[in-house]
């Protein structure tokens, strides 16, 4: 009970601060300024908010919060008027933000026309509740519980919302019981492999040695994935509390967070959070009088995908080239500096803190047996509602892509969803009704991975997508073992030939054979999973490979060497828009004269296709379109004006 007493002043201060914020007589304005928000222009919105409140003489609190996951309609601005629910406004511009502030805070008009949702509280003025929106309705926020709600730079906000109470509960139990609790929760490694977390901890706890380490793998290297970044930016303490619990359960005295350097904001947030923990006595010697001594250090990755592999990551922490080594010995017995080491992903640690806070049974009530809890995904690519989502395991791909993601942009046809990044696979429409869990994805030839989910539509060429992933793994292969080093190179070479229209009939057999060799012979998971994008596209989209090889045609008209652009004489209005937009000036024509693309000089950048207001540009593969050889007068009927 000593720890609870020591914690009490922190809790009191946190509650007072949080309550002060909730019951303040001043309005509270929140702006989401995670990296994605900033990319959408949140900084300018924040400045406009400051400017507007100053100009209007408003006494208001302005708070920067993390990402709530609605990236597709960022920047987001939320306003809480005293005694009123929190209203969220999307797609803000500096001008709109200033307007909303003036209208709502001065004229008491909440602008339902601009409002997105009520974040906490009942629907009002026709504004729906946030979690009634189609994107959020199927979601359950467990790991992301605080993202977008608290100031991630303020440890007291985290504590006020139950933070570090999981750690306190852990301290009241013997370490073995903490491990049992983790086992009972059913939590599996969220880095992608899905190994039961409690069991992993037990291996390390039972390993011989008095010095033990724990590591948080925040080297989120999968292109197309940003779940870990969002969590670290929006709620760093949830992850660090998980590590404290792990340190106690395993008996570790030192921990490392290995975060990729491409995430500068996450790095800042972790640095600050560690500092706050030290100040509050949550790190160091004899933490809260419990006898536990634990220190945390941050190490930045330096841009090597292979460092997501645990043994490579540890080599990197030790200051060496990040190359994997054979296992066994497993890190639980011989890891960092040959000492017993336990390594978990950011999301696993983020789950740990809430499991200890709310109990294993509570956690296991989400998801399905064997795949309990939730999983975060970054839902991106050609879906309407891109963003960060958290759903219970067991939802189908269709539910995620159509219900949460709103289907494919522009009403186009779904072609594939890619899970697990360069280690995962591309799954076709026929598998959309499969539930998402570790086993079904593996059976389909893909993996859960850390949670990247990239959707592709009819305009995406699957051979080109496979080539894209292999160009990545080829570059990132560390070169230590030949199956990966040579295999990625050969596969890439073949795929490049196929996408250039120089494929040969035996290429597909070769790809299959090289892929099998890599799976069987590679030293680490990078090489062992690198063929997945190729093997799954061969399995589900073989016809696209055959079209490239046998007909020299790209069915998606995406591979440049196999694609031509034409301006259709019966549609061209001679408006000069494409001619002016063409970055290489290869379009000739004049006002009211049909434009012509110089096929020799065209770089196939598709700018003309995108800018043409009359759908007069055609992109085709495997066939030529008859177009005039000279600029003739426009014959197409003029476009209909006005609404029709």
């Amino acid at each position, binding site marked *: 009970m000593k720890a609870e007493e020591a914690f009490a002043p922190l809790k009191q201060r946190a509650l007072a601060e949080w309550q002060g914020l909730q019951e303040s007589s001043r309005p509270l304005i929140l702006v989401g300024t995670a*990296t*994605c928000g*900033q*990319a*959408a222009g949140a900084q300018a919105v924040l400045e406009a908010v400051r400017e507007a409140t100053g100009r209007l003489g408003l006494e208001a609190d302005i708070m920067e919060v993390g990402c709530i996951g609605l*990236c*597709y309609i*960022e920047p987001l601005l939320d306003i809480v008027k005293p005694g009123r629910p929190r209203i969220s406004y999307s797609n803000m511009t500096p001008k709109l933000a200033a307007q909303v502030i003036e209208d709502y805070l001065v004229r008491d008009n909440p602008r339902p026309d601009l409002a997105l949702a009520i974040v906490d509280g009942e629907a009002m003025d026709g504004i729906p509740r946030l979690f009634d929106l189609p994107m959020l309705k199927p979601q359950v926020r467990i790991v992301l519980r605080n993202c977008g709600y608290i100031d991630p730079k303020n440890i007291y906000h985290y504590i006020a919302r139950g933070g570090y109470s999981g750690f306190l509960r852990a301290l009241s139990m013997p370490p073995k019981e903490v491990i049992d609790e983790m086992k009972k929760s059913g939590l599996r490694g969220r880095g992608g492999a899905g190994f039961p977390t409690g069991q992993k901890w037990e291996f390390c706890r039972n390993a011989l040695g008095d010095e033990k380490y724990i590591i948080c793998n925040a080297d*989120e*290297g*999968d*292109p*197309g*994935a*940003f779940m870990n*970044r969002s969590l670290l930016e929006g709620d760093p303490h949830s992850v660090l509390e998980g590590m404290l619990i792990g340190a106690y359960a395993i008996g570790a005295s030192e921990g490392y967070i290995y975060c990729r*350097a*491409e*995430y*500068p904001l996450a790095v800042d947030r972790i640095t600050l959070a560690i500092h706050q923990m030290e100040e509050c006595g949550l790190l160091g010697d004899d933490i809260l009088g419990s006898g536990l001594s634990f220190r945390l250090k941050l*190490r*930045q*990755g*330096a*841009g*090597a*995908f292979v460092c997501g592999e645990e043994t490579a990551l540890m080599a*990197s*922490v*030790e*200051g*060496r*080239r*990040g*190359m994997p080594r054979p296992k066994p010995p497993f890190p639980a017995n011989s890891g960092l500096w040959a000492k017993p080491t336990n390594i978990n992903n950011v999301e696993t640690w983020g789950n740990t803190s809430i499991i200890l806070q709310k109990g294993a049974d509570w956690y296991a009530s989400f998801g399905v047996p064997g795949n309990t809890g939730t999983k975060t995904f*970054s*839902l*991106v*690519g*050609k879906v309407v509602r*891109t*963003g*960060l989502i958290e759903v219970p395991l067991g939802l189908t791909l269709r539910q995620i892509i159509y219900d949460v993601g709103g289907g494919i942009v522009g009403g186009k046809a779904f072609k594939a969803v*890619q899970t697990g*990044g360069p280690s995962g696979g591309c799954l076709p429409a026929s598998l959309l009704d499969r539930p998402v869990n570790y086993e079904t994805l593996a059976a389909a030839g893909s993996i859960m991975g850390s949670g*990247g989910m*990239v959707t592709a539509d009819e305009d*995406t060429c699957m051979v080109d*997508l496979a080539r*894209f*992933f292999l160009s990545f793994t080829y570059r*990132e292969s*560390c070169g230590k073992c030949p199956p990966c080093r040579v295999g990625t190179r050969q596969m890439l070479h073949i795929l490049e030939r196929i996408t250039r229209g120089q494929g040969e009939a035996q290429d597909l057999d070769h790809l299959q054979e090289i892929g099998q060799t890599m799976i069987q012979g590679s030293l680490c998971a990078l090489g062992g999973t690198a063929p997945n994008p190729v093997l799954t596209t061969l399995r589900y989209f073989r016809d696209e490979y055959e079209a490239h090889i046998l007909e020299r045609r790209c069915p998606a008209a995406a591979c440049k060497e196999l694609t031509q652009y034409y301006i259709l004489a019966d549609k061209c209005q001679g408006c000069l828009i494409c001619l002016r*937009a063409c*970055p290489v000036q290869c379009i000739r024509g004049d006002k009211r004269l049909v434009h012509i693309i110089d096929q020799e000089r065209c*770089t196939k*950048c*598709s*700018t003309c296709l*995108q800018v043409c207001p009359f759908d007069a540009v055609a992109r085709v593969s495997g066939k030529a379109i008859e177009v005039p050889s000279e600029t003739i007068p426009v014959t197409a009927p003029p476009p209909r004006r006005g609404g029709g």
Partner: protein
Amino acid sequence: MAQELEAIFQKHKRERSSLISVLQEVQYKLGYLSPEAIAEIARFLKISESEIYGVATFYAQFRFTRPGEHEIKVCLGTACHVRGGERILEEMERELDIQAGGVTPDYKFSLEKVACFGSCALAPVMVVGKEVHGRMDPNRAKKIIRALR
């Protein structure tokens, strides 16, 4: 340079595991890892220069030539690839008349391609200096560069 390096060295323990952090801080300070800087780091950590090069060249983050005043990074991660990131890169290569990995003769701009910034929901993405620009198209990208000229 010596003073700047000394200030960095003072923050670190003289041990192997400090190497990558030291390299990162030196690059952050100087913009790149010059041969002179590597020699100083070797002296401080008592590791041979060749071994430091061995580590530094393994990681994509480290560069050994002077970057441009404005560092432009075009993302070619999966989401950016699917949404046309390559077109942004091609436009930049045309606009700056350099290839990815290069620097303009006046050292005003350098151009790089990177694997992922984690701003995938706003793909395609381009980073100029520290500023992340989302929802790019070739023309918008060009305007951003022209404003810096």
